[in-house]
C-alpha cells in the first residue's frame, strides 16, 4: 500500500500551516496592560487586516493540499 499523499501534498500542507502560524504571530498583541487605558494598537492594519488574510490564505492552501492530485 502506497502513501496517501505525495511529497507535493505534504509540502503544501506545511506551507499552509506556516501561513496560519504567521497570521497568528502577527495577531499577537494589541491588549492593554492597564485596563483604564485604551490601546489603539488593537485596531492596527497588521492585526486587523494582514493577519486574518494570512490565516485565510493558510486555510485555502490546506484545502488545496488535501485535494491536490498529480495528473
Amino acid at each position, binding site marked *: 500500500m502506497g502513501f496517501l499523499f505525495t511529497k507535493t501534498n505534504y509540502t503544501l500542507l506545511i506551507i499552509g*500551516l506556516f501561513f*496560519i*502560524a504567521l497570521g*497568528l*504571530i502577527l*495577531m*499577537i*498583541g*494589541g*491588549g492593554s496592560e492597564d485596563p483604564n487605558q485604551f490601546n489603539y494598537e*488593537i*485596531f492596527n492594519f497588521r*492585526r*486587523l487586516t494582514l493577519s*486574518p488574510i494570512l*490565516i*485565510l490564505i493558510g*486555510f485555502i492552501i*490546506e*484545502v488545496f493540499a*488535501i*485535494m491536490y*492530485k498529480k495528473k
Partner: protein
Amino acid sequence: MGIFEAILLGVIQGLTEFLPVSSSGHLEIVKVIFNNSLTKESLLTTVVLHAATALSTIFVFRKDVIILFREVPKNSHFLLKIIISMIPAVLIGFFLESQIEAFFSGQLLLVGVMLIITGILLWFSDRVKNSTNELTFTNSLIIGIAQAIAILPGVSRSGATIATSILLGIDKKSSARFSFLMVIPLIFGVMIKKILAPEFCLEKEMLIPLIIGFISAFFTGIIACKWMIKLVQNSRLKYFAFYCFSVSGIIFISYLF
C-alpha cells in the same frame, strides 16, 4: 489555555462535530457544572477548531469534492441541492443567531428536551430498513431546515440532518455524505465572517496551544467522521439515542433534587 487543554478541546471538537451528541448542548451542560469557568475559550479558538474539523471533512470526502468541482456541469444539480440546504441556516444565522444564543444560554432544561428530540430522531432513523429514494430539491430544503433547527443547544447537527434524510427515504450512505458535504461551505462562510470581524485579541502564550488544538481537532475529526459513516451504514445510531436519553434523564433528575 495550556497544551493539555488545547489537545482536549481539539479532541472534543473533533468528536462532537461528527458524532450525533450535540456539541452546543454539552457545552451548556459543562458551563453549568463548572460555573462557566472551563468554557471561556476565545472566539479565535472556536474558529480555528471549526476550521480544523472542516478540513477533516474535506480530507475524508476529498474524492467526492474533487469530482464535484472537476465536473461541475455534470454535478450542478447536487451542488444546487447543497446551496438550497444552506439557505435556512444562513437566514437563521444572519437574523436570529444572537437572539437564540441570548435566549437559550444556560437553559439546561431546554437542552434536556432537545436531547430527547435528538434521541427520538436517531432511534427512528435506525429502524428504517429500506431507504432508496433519491435526494430531491425539496428534500434538500427539508434537510436544510433540520440543520437550521440544530442551532438550538441539544439538537445535534449531524444527527438531525442524517436522521431527517434517512426518514425521507434516502439511503444511509448518501445521507451521511450529504450531511457532511452540506456543512463545509457553511463552516468556511462562518469562519471568513468571524475571522474578518475585529474581535480577536491573541496572547503570546496562546500561539502554540492554538496550533496544537488545530492539529488535534483535525486528526480526531478524521477518525470521528469515518466512524460516524460506519455507524450510520450499520444502523448503530440507537446507541447514541440511548446516550441522549440518559444525559437528558440526568438533567431532569438534577432539576428535581
